[in-house]
């Protein structure tokens, strides 16, 4: 992969930038009888916990908060390692890379869930769900981190090991 470090860095920086709006703005608005309540990602998880659906809440917490954040941090670490030629246990770090590349897709969970809710709950005045601005930002974070993982060349972890 040519310019692997630069490309990965570009994607990962854009990912960090969009991670902020993805978490502050509402990801969807649920309105019932004309009254809308906007939900952020965290708000949606809190709502799930309050209605006693802890396992699902944990699932969403892992997929939409922890995985994107750990991915951003993990790829940053990999980048530092490749750039500063750290002496590391390359086998272990390759495993880290593989985990990051594998879990990335599961963050799309929230986006798909919104797509289903938006298509399904469309009952005019009674109830409706509208996607919010954070959905775009969050979708972008998922795609950008997946691209970053794809651009990173794991060979770099091996090249400078003595």
């Amino acid at each position: 992969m040519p310019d692997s470090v630069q490309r990965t860095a570009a994607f990962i920086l854009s990912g960090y930038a969009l991670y902020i709006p993805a978490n502050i703005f509402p990801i969807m608005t649920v309105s019932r009888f004309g009254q809308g309540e906007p939900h952020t990602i965290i708000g949606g998880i809190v709502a799930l916990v309050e209605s006693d659906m802890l396992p699902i809440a944990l699932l969403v917490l892992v997929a939409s908060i922890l995985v994107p954040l750990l991915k951003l941090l993990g790829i940053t670490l990999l980048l530092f390692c490749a750039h500063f030629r750290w002496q590391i246990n390359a086998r272990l770090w390759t495993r880290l890379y593989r985990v990051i590349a594998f879990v990335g897709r599961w963050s799309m969970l929230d986006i798909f869930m919104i797509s289903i809710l938006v298509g399904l709950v469309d009952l005019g005045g009674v109830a409706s769900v509208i996607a919010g601005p954070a959905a775009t930002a969050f979708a972008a974070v998922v795609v950008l981190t997946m691209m970053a993982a794809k651009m990173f060349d794991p060979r770099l972890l091996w090249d400078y090991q003595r």
Partner: protein
Amino acid sequence: MRRINLDACPECDVLLNRAFPVMGEKAHCPRCGYLLQRPRRHSIERTFALSVSGLILMMPANLMPLISIKIFGNSNDGSLWSGVVMLIKDDMWIVAALVFLSSMLFPVLTIILSLLISGHLFFDKPNPNLAVWMRWLQHLDEWAMLEVYMLGIIVACVKLSSLAELKFGFGLYAFVALLMVAVTLSSGLDHYQFWQRINDMQKQQA
């Protein structure tokens, strides 16, 4: 010219003598542990058969209602496609495009590509595009996310179960079947064997 038969590990680029694992064995890279080869029985025939069934399931899974809800006498049903349409109506173009690509277009394309490749290999018809298709298949496989969509359906159902009455539609059964086909398809495809066959075919042509 002396030809050397060496494999390079796709992940860490170490050069290796070719491994010849038999059925049921796996070949890992000795340096980084990458799974190099995993021979599959009847991989070409299986891929061919599964991609035909995937194509049949594609239409009902994408267009027929997955779930229907009922709140105070008002009812509505949703399919994969209706979610995308509603997102476009709400001016969420980027999200709509991403959902459309990763849950509808890319899965269809991976199935069509698998059908094309395995069909050509099955009937022993050389084609100069085989290597290109194979490369596209490897790229697209990562962006087709039916299994994540399934989890999205489950979470959405749990969220709605307290508010509304839910009913599963025929589309959901088709979707689950399609998901199983897609997963067995991608795990049963023996990349090493496919590439080897493509290589042999091109050599015969030349």
